[in-house]
């Protein structure tokens, strides 16, 4: 494109004024034609007047309608060379013509001095007139007949005879429907009438089943003989019934155009929407459709505009009406040739909104639920965008290797941002911006693959905030810029890698765009909602046995919801179960303070940026004007928090913390949220998650989709019969969904032995030893099992005294509730660091070994070879208490897999061969394999070998280098370290030099890794030095050297160059 985008923007405003005039004209025409009681002459005369203002030069514009022998025209009408004509067609017959003339010469445009849009406008008006005339004539006829129905049969008979002359096809259709109607009434004779329509009825029925084409004998006489149908009807039915049925069928036939448009896949979106417009117009004029036709039109619209995904279609057809889709079409931005859809997110939110709006009618509670203004760019626009900017090669981009994609991506964003959007889209955006005003907007991706149930593209494609401030041109430019960037993310490395992992790479993908108003208020220079969050209809993270799955879960933060959607390790949203609002996750003041939001995400309107601000600082400055803050914060008062009363907190001096206590206890918020969740889940027929925000007054639903499961949270399929020797334990209470595959080590703290420890010091040692194991064992490849409550403090008989950092690398934390006499201890549900577990995806599982039907193979844990002493020899005295089992060596190469299924409320730990697939597909959710990408570890392994080969052992005093951890075990991921043990015997000076040398390597490798994977760790090497003494005493990591299990791998050193 040679034109600068700026210029396009400048021209736009003028063009938009034109569009407004045209729309106005069309509106006037429609209004005139639908005005009740107006006769044909009046109507046409009025239309003559409303047409000229719709044209570019209204002052010199005149119009004329010729209809049969009548002519209606502007007062000063005269024929000129500058004219547009369009035929008025009634039932395929040209019945007249409409003309628009300019009285003076004007510059040449699309068609003479006329715009392309003006050609479309006149055609539409002509179209409207045709429909009107047909309608008018029929209505006239019906009215007449209805009035003088002294002779009862004449009414519909006249209609039929008119049809016979003008539209024999319609007559046949009408007759056929009448036969159906009669058959439905149980009139036997009617069945014989079928032969009128096709000779096939006369034949043996089998003939249609035969495997050669049936030769139809066309019955030319059909039309003539149809009278028998109506004669029969007259015999059995009331006159009124016949009349109204015929009326209904004839009208219905007028909607044939819509059906035609919808069934032809080649028809573009604009054709469909035009047809829909016409249909709605007819509907407003009193057209009624049969249920069957309504259903078929609706389904076709859903499939063409919203989604073809089966479960979506099934829910949508229950809750969406044709009119709803028509309303939606006003907010769609597309090109004339578009065939696209809304995409997953767009379709999801639209359906949810409709469900809520419909529920609204019955429930006063829902009056408070709103949805933000939303516009949609349909999904295939991205391809014309790519075509227009000659970016075709990007389409095959996904087949490059992931390293290249990652490397190319920044450049690609750059290219996209410099490529202008198609002009039609710019126009659409401009209209949308007028509708939005200057509130900040969020541009979200809405891709086709996103709406596949169970697919969690969450966060893979971009969502961008735009502050939407400044002149219209500036706003339009920054919106277009954001859209280009979201488009670019379709080709980003993360989603492509995700598609590889889920075998979606060869699927066709398109990306729609959702432009949503950001809910919020302006406070100082900032714009943000009072609070926002995500909510799940099924609770997968229950911190108390009293909370049930269906109690749901909310993650709530002040400000924009970004901090609730993401899992951040250094900040915590407030979590609450709407079904059990009083069972709070945090009981003590310390917990409340530890697990509360520390930052707030806002849009800075002045700088046009997105910012995360320290919450204390923010409250001090803006607390007074923060919307609804009294219900959101609590005042820390000595050893408790309280909801601010009276005039509210003193923002200058009080210590405040976001607890949302006021919101939970003094408002309907949670019950509202609960109703929304259950309503949506019930109506959409599957668990859902939503995003929401509140501007201080109203509750807004921002997004709704089927509850997504992270890869590890899909309900596992549990084999029906598991041999006893393979089943290590099972559990049947408080089970969540998921799979923990390929566990190589089990750390088991024996409840009985732990209970027998006689000194507190020794109990504390158990915690310390666990902390050491946490450092030594491979991250997320081992599980921790222990008595009672992990993380006990004070009375540590209840469970092992550990902090989060002592267990941070485990894949799962398992609590064993061993019965003591009559008494089963309460488990902690991980409450001591529950939220840390949630944010870092460590699974929690309680086991009740004495429960009926539960298997707990204690012998496996206590009798299998215990390698604890080899790993941490300095805690050897705890060998009876802590058992570390190397699963692979002790079970002939098998690994342990924990399969959890919440629906069945069952979890099992089984020994099985190593799973190449990390995800066990459940039969209901077809999932692709998730392969561990081979190249991560292989590259690391080679690199480590190179490093060792380059190291001069004499110079640095190195005796040996050993590789361990994920690189050695071939499990390294994109973020993994390379773990090395260096057997060092040199001087302090040599050690310093060596450290420096290694640091150089570490940083360079990190940079190389960043280019390969996008991850940066600040140094890729993790080096541990061991001395001769360590090796002799087998202390520290030295135990890995020559170990029986998971031994470190010796790397060949550089040949002594000295």
């Amino acid at each position, binding site marked *: 494109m040679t034109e600068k985008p700026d210029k396009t923007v400048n021209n736009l405003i003028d063009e938009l004024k034109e569009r407004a005039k045209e729309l106005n004209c069309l509106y006037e025409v429609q209004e005139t034609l639908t005005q009740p009681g107006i006769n044909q002459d009046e109507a046409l005369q009025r239309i003559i007047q409303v047409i000229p203002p719709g044209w570019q030069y209204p002052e010199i514009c005149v119009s004329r309608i010729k209809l049969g022998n009548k002519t209606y025209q502007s007062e000063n009408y005269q024929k000129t060379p500058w004219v547009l004509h369009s035929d008025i067609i009634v039932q395929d017959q040209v019945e007249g013509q409409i003309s628009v003339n300019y009285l003076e010469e004007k510059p040449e445009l699309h068609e003479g001095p006329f715009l392309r849009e003006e050609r479309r406008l006149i055609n539409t008006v002509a179209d409207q007139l045709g429909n009107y005339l047909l309608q008018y004539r029929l209505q006239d006829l019906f009215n007449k007949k209805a009035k003088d129905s002294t002779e009862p049969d004449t009414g519909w008979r006249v209609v039929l005879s008119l049809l016979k002359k003008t539209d024999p096809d319609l007559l046949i259709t009408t007759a056929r429907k009448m036969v159906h109607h009669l058959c439905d009434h149980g009139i036997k004779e009617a069945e014989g009438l079928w032969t009128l329509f096709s000779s096939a009825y006369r034949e043996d029925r089998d003939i249609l089943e035969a495997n050669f084409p049936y030769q139809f004998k066309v019955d030319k006489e059909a039309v003539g003989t149809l009278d028998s149908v109506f004669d029969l009807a007259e015999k059995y039915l009331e006159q009124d019934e016949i009349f109204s049925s015929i009326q209904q069928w004839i009208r219905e036939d007028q909607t044939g155009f819509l059906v035609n448009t919808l069934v032809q896949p080649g028809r573009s979106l604009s054709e469909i929407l035009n047809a829909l417009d016409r249909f709605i117009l007819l509907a407003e004029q009193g057209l009624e459709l049969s249920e069957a036709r309504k259903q078929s039109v609706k389904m076709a619209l859903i499939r063409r505009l919203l989604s073809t995904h089966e479960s979506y279609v099934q829910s949508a057809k229950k809750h969406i009406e044709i009119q709803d889709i028509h309303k939606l079409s006003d907010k769609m931005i597309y090109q004339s040739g578009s065939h696209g859809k809304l995409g997953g997110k767009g379709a999801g939110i639209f359906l949810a909104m409709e469900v809520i709006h419909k529920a609204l009618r019955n429930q006063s509670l829902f009056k408070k639920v709103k949805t933000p203004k939303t516009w949609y760019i349909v999904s295939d626009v991205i391809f014309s965008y790519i075509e227009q900017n000659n970016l075709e090669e990007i389409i095959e981009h996904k087949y490059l290797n992931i390293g290249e994609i990652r490397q190319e991506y920044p450049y690609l964003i750059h290219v996209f941002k410099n490529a202008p959007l198609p002009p039609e889209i710019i126009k659409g955006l401009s209209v949308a911006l007028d509708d939005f005003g200057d509130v900040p907007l969020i541009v979200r991706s809405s891709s086709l693959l996103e709406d596949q149930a169970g697919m969690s593209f969450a966060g893979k494609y971009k969502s961008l905030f735009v502050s939407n401030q400044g002149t219209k041109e500036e706003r339009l430019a920054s919106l277009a810029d954001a859209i280009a960037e979201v488009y670019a993310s379709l080709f980003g490395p993360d989603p492509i890698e995700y598609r590889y992992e889920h075998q979606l790479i060869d699927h066709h993908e398109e990306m729609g765009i959702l432009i949503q108003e950001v809910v919020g208020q302006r406070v100082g220079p900032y714009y943000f909602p009072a609070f926002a969050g995500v909510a799940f209809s099924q609770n997968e993270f229950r911190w108390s046995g009293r909370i049930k799955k269906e109690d749901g879960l909310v993650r709530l933060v002040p400000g924009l919801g970004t901090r609730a959607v993401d899992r951040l390790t250094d900040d915590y949203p407030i979590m609450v179960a709407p079904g059990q609002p009083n*069972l709070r996750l945090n009981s003590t003041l310390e917990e409340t303070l*530890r697990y509360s939001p520390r930052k707030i995400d806002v849009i800075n309107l002045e700088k046009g940026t997105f910012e995360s601000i320290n919450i204390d600082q923010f409250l001090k400055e803006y607390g007074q004007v923060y919307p609804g803050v009294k219900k959101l914060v609590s005042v820390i008062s000595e050893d408790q928090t309280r909801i601010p009363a009276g005039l509210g907190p003193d923002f200058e001096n009080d210590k405040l913390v976001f607890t949302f206590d006021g919101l939970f206890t003094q408002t309907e918020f949670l019950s509202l949220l609960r109703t929304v969740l259950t309503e949506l889940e019930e109506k959409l027929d599957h668990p859902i998650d939503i995003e929401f925000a509140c501007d201080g007054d109203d509750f807004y639903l921002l997004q709704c989709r089927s509850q997504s499961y992270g890869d590890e949270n899909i309900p596992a399929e549990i084999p029906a019969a598991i041999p006893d020797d393979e089943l290590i334990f099972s559990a049947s209470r408080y089970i969540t969904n998921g799979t923990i595959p390929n566990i190589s080590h089990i750390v088991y703290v024996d409840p009985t032995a732990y209970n027998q*420890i006689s000194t507190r010091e*020794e109990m504390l040692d158990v915690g310390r030893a666990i902390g050491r194991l946490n450092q030594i064992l491979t991250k997320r490849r081992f599980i921790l099992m222990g008595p009672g409550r992990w993380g006990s403090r004070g009375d540590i008989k209840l469970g092992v005294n550990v902090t989060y*950092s002592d267990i*941070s690398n485990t894949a799962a934390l398992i609590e064993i509730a061993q019965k003591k006499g009559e008494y089963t*201890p309460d488990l902690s549900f991980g*409450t001591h660091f529950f939220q840390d577990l949630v944010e870092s995806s460590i699974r929690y599982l309680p086991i009740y070994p004495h429960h009926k039907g539960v298997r707990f193979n204690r012998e496996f844990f206590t009798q299998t070879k215990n390698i604890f002493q080899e790993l941490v020899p300095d805690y050897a005295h705890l060998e009876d208490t802590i058992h570390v089992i190397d699963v692979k060596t002790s079970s002939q190469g098998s690994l342990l897999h924990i399969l959890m299924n919440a629906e069945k409320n069952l979890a099992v730990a089984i020994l099985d061969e190593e799973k190449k697939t990390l995800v066990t597909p459940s039969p209901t959710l077809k999932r692709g394999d998730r392969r561990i990408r081979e190249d991560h570890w292989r590259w690391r392994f080679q690199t480590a070998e190179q490093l060792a080969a380059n190291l001069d052992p004499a110079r640095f005093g190195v005796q040996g280098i050993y590789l361990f951890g994920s690189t050695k075990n071939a499990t390294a991921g994109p973020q993994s370290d390379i773990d090395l043990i260096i057997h060092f015997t040199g001087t302090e000076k040599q050690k310093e030099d060596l450290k420096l040398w290694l640091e150089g390597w570490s940083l360079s490798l990190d940079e190389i890794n960043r280019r390969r994977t996008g991850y940066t760790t600040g140094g890729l090497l993790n080096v541990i030095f061991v001395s001769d003494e360590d090796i002799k005493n087998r202390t520290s990591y030295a135990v890995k050297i020559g170990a029986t299990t998971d031994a470190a791998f010796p790397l060949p050193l550089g040949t002594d160059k000295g």
Partner: protein
Amino acid sequence: MSDSSYNPYTMAQKQFDNAAELLDLDQATRDFLRVPMREYQFSIPVRMDDGSIKVFRGFRVQHNDARGPSKGGIRFHPQETINTVRALSMWMTWKCAVVDIPLGGGKGGVICDPHNLSLNEQERLCRGWVRCLAKNVGPLSDVPAPDVMTNSQHMLWMLDEYETIHGGKYPGFITGKPVGMGGSLGRTEATGYGVMITVREAMKELGIDIQKTTASFQGFGNVSQYAIELYQQMGGTPICVSCWIQKEGKAYSFVKKDGFDLERLREITNHFGEIDKEKAQDQGFEVLDSGAWLEQDVDLLVPAALENQITGESVPRISKQVKIIAEGANGPTTPEADEVIKERGILVIPDFLANAGGVTCSYFEQVQSNQNYFWAKEEILGKLDLKMTDAYLAVSKFAKTNKIYMRDAAYMISVERVSKACQARGWV
């Protein structure tokens, strides 16, 4: 099997037996003091929010009230046992006695996990607890206080139930109430100040000018912060403090050799006593590993974080310059380390005594509540100073006279005081 397992009650009894042996107590006194005087175990039915009834197990143990009403907290704990409560009640008896306040020892609890209870349910549980015991506790007999997983809110519910039953206002029934609702000022400062008051007295005895001393603190929580505050006011120079950084799962020591300013450090510290590392470096601190606080060349070490911090392994790293170790935390020194410290002649102010400022302030709350007259902060801190000074001097004198280690002296003086009270009453 349970015989061999760790039992805090057996441990508390063993400790007592040792002291009794050293004090050469008669058999009757030993028999009387090694078990609690009274124990209550009862069931508390609570109507839950969903309408069902759940029965909770409650405890109250009054170990000894020879010197005055029993005093001790109420714990809400899912695996509470009677033995734990017994042990803790006994420790309360000794703790009150060492600072010579006219209170005995008690402890109570309920087997429950507040994470599983709504606030309404917790309120009904608190009220239920009081209904079960209304005749057996009271400002003149047994005074509860907050403890594990209970706070001032729970105390107010309990007080309200008690007053409803007895038809009057009895603010002295319970301590740990919010200020303005019968609570006492000075509670935040009490423990930390108490530690430093004993240090001051110790330095006086040793003839050290506090203004010329430097100190290193482990932990930067409440106790440590107020200990530093008073230390600075008295002219001492704090040069090192360590703190735990949750996010990293690690502790760090922050060192500023020429002394640091507490107020500035507090500005970059969060509610949990976590110091911002970067900002500390900007302030000129050196950020060292967790153990560095112990190795500083200072006159005074104040371990005020966790138990078992000074161990047999780390004790040799203590600088030769160190003259006093004041135990702000509970049990920061292991027995092996104790031996070394004893040998090196460093003066230890044992946890028992050093951090008794807290219980002293609870006593003040009770006194103020009983007379329904509330003191200004200065008055409280003044009285605290008096109590702590006297307590220190008595223990120190006892240690010198009997030529015993400070830790043993503190324990023995308490047992002696309690046994004398029992004998004076003619009980044994």
